């Protein structure tokens, strides 16, 4: 029976946390990425400066440092705010929320670059045609821009996603019960670190392999309209 010294279920719980964390962070990252890309391409100078600072600074600092900064610093900030508002008990941030926020915030910067490139690749005439039909800017965005930019965004989006799944392993350092941390606990109790970390590595390998196949399928599907030599 494959029970991993009785820790199989515990690590599977951690795997579930990792998966949830990765998918939720992806949602945050895509949202921030689209906002960042629109900011970078906007006509307003302050917006452009803010988004430029966001993407440059975030991409220039290691994930781990940002995570520690946001985790410890955010904890302090929330408590100081709560104290200023007259709330006297200690506020503990949920590590899952902190993890999602942090990873989403970091990869939002990478996504912003991806989406910016994709938006620029859609020809301007398409957007003008939309406007000439009397569509509002939001309609042009949703009906014309998004369906066409997906094709250009997908390869780089896929890379970001693969890097992001692997980055979720770092949240174990700030105390979120993902599979790496669960494996660490199990390893400490049984003195079998190799076995547990290898199992976790294998799980990550499954995640990345499945993702690669899904992404390849999506890329094929979204480039149906493209003529190939």
């Amino acid at each position: 029976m494959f029970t991993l010294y009785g820790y199989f279920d515990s690590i599977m719980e951690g795997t579930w946390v990792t998966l949830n964390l990765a998918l939720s962070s992806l949602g945050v990252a895509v949202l921030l990425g689209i906002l960042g890309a629109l900011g970078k391409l906007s006509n307003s100078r302050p917006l452009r400066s803010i988004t430029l600072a966001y993407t440059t600074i975030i991409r220039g600092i290691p994930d781990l440092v940002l995570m520690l900064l946001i985790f410890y610093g955010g904890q302090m900030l929330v408590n100081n705010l709560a104290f200023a508002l007259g709330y006297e008990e200690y506020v503990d941030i949920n590590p899952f929320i902190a993890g999602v926020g942090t990873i989403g915030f970091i990869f939002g910067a990478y996504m912003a670059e991806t989406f910016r490139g994709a938006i620029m690749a859609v020809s301007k005439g398409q957007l003008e045609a939309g406007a000439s039909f009397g569509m509002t800017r939001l309609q042009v965005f949703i009906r014309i821009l998004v369906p066409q930019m997906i094709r250009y965004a997908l390869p780089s989006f896929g890379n970001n996603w693969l890097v992001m799944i692997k980055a979720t392993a770092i949240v174990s350092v700030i105390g979120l019960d993902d599979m790496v941390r669960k494996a660490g606990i199990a390893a400490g109790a049984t003195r079998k670190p190799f076995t547990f970390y290898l199992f976790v590595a294998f799980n990550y390998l499954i995640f990345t392999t499945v993702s690669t196949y899904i992404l390849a399928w999506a890329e094929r599907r979204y480039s149906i309209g493209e003529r190939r030599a």
Partner: protein
Amino acid sequence: MDFSIISENLHYYFDGLLITVQLTGISLLLGLIFAIPLAVLRTSRNFILTMPIRFFVYVFRGTPLIVQMFIIYYGLGQFDFVKFGFGVFQEGFNPDNIGNQTFLWKYFFSEAYFCALFAFTLNTCAYTIEIIRGAIESTPFGEVEAAKSVGMSRTMMLRRIILPSSLRRAFPAYGNEVIFMLHGSALASVITLMDITGAAGIINARYYAPYEAYITAGVFYLCITFTIVWLFKKIEKRIYAHLAPYVDKTQKTAAVN
């Protein structure tokens, strides 16, 4: 925020900077040295030859660096033969005798520094193989054809035509890998090494000043990142000099074509 804490303890960061630069630099160098021949082998048509390299690249690119590091640092100690040699399989072996430790264990795998370096080297090697392989496979066929037509042997073609041409093409992607590795080296602080992130950890623990500690670390990393980007731009300009638009120095305008 009180940055006087930082100015009093700045030496921690500079000591950390040294460790970060060492870890990143040595692992990149070793990784590159191994990656070039492996990438050449990877492009061979012999399946038995390419299989192990494919597998290595697949595993190291598909799993997180931190897990690879944990497997090496925490994991290897699980096996007695790593610690004490193959004598453990013989009868009457006494592991309590410290003198029995193997050379590899005593000086390398029980040291966090070496384990981090080892994990980083394997990781960057895998990514670099993939970068160089892509560049080799995108060598314009005309170049290979020309080399063949003047009667070059396979090795001479590799040395004179394929490698110089593809390493030049791989250069921008390798720049990204260098930055990726610099950022990855921050993970060394998790296994107790005192790199820049480790230094920030000390300051945060001692003064409970997360903003000051980690923002300073961030600034250090930003400076290194910008330096690398600047350096790579400069080198790129040099190695792509033959592709730059022709400038007629007497007229000071770029000539068309």
